């Protein structure tokens, strides 16, 4: 099976073509103009990852929402579950940038952290 990907490592945006075998193994990888493209396309085929950025509700804060992020990328198929897991979350103000909102988020070995400081409402 043939699969094509756009490399997102740099603005060149190479179209990388992968030839995939019966056991989902990569038989060949062409179209990338550098080694980083090969690493990207291999990872993107075998275990694509994305950083989650979203917001959570706040209590007593100067703003109704706090922007949060995963401190490491998480597996792409987990994005939906991650959004559901943050939907009803409420964080108490004050918060400092980098504060952990959820430790070991969804048992993925990453933390959900605050993207900014948030003062108490005055």
């Amino acid at each position, binding site marked *: 099976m043939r699969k094509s990907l*756009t*490399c997102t490592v740099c603005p060149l945006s190479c179209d990388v073509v992968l030839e995939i075998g019966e056991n989902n193994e990569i038989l060949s990888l062409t179209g990338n*103009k550098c080694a980083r493209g090969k690493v990207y396309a291999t990872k993107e085929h075998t275990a694509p990852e994305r950083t989650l950025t*979203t917001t959570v509700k706040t209590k007593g804060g100067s703003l*109704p929402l706090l922007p949060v992020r995963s401190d490491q990328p998480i597996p792409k198929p987990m994005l939906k579950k991650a959004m559901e897991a943050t939907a009803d979350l409420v964080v108490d103000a004050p918060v400092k940038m980098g504060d952990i909102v959820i430790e070991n988020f969804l048992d993925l070995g990453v933390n959900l952290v605050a*993207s900014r400081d948030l003062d108490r409402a005055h």
Partner: protein
Amino acid sequence: MKRSDVDVAVIGGGPAGLAAALAARNEGASKVLIIERNHELGGILQQCIHHGFGLHRFKAELTGPEYAQRFINLVKETDIEVLLETMVLEVRDDRTIYAVNSTDGMLEIGAKAVVLAMGCRERTRGALRIPGKRPAGIFSAGTAQRYLNIDGYIPGKKAVILGSGDIGLIMARRLALEGAQVEAVVEILPYAAGLARNVVQCLEDFDIPLILQSTVVQIHGDDRLEAVTIAKVDENWKPIPGTEQKIECDTLLLSVGLIPENELSREAGVALDPITNGPKVDDTLMTSVPGVFACGNVLHVHDLVDNVSKEAERAGAFAGRYALQQQADAARRVKVEAGENIRYVVPHEISLDKPVEFFMRVQRPEQNVVLDLGGLRTVKKPSVRPSEMLNITLTEEMLSKLEGDTLTVRIVPQKEDGVDA
């Protein structure tokens, strides 16, 4: 009316204003003031909760709020004064500023140097002249981003996005993540206007179709948007009859360009460039009004905030020097011109006594080209795109070789035998 005097007044507390104020203070200007109309510093970064900021500056992929927080923390460590919820009404050409807030009323601020850092705003439906009714549900992409990320309201359940610039793509993903259905992103150009990375991570990841060479030709609905009609366009961007397609939606987001916000500059008598819609500046980023400097998106719309910070630091430092009267007049000045496939170049005029960093954009995508700065420096580029800003520095030594009174920047094809890079 309360009167105060400062060395450097910075108008706008977004990424440009923050970096400019810090640089002016570091340069030795002792009284530096930031005037911001919002209730907090950080500007538009506060609503850009996605990551990808700061790769050049911090060698890390930060979110917008994280990038802003780093600069806000630096400002907090200094004695830079910040006026929040304060609206500047007028900047005079003698650098007197009139502003207003609900605590002090009217303010008169005398500044030895002024840095314009007001940023830009979005083009609206009116600018596109989309025909049809005027129901609720039509937003500029940035407004929808604010509703969603700051205020916590989802603008609709079923959306079409016009324009594939990065803001449009980012909003497509954001809406999809929050459970809205994104029917399509519609782009008038034959290629996506935003970064390839955003096409992959914001559209392909969520199976959102990108419809190229098309535009919205009709708006349907009375109280609330019910549908839009899109159509293919020809090479002159004219809709082609018979190619119409109706898409049901309750929300239309417009991501169709940004315009530098120069009302204050214009009133102060600052000369503007009709291409960038920003001030004309020299290599110290000073405008045509002495002592008034400009940086960030008010000067020209940037692709990366990292470039905004860098440019703003330069403007802030020169503003600081101007305030301290340490800036000597240049002996010789040279005009900078946009040549083949260059849409614009900033700065517009240079002296030859210090290194200059040039920022420019091309008119159309091209591959395997050479960027030629007046024959003083040539740089090979495998590909250039209008959405990606180019920046190149010329050293004093390179500039010393310039003859004549014009420096022309152009894109030329790469020769087979190779041009020196």
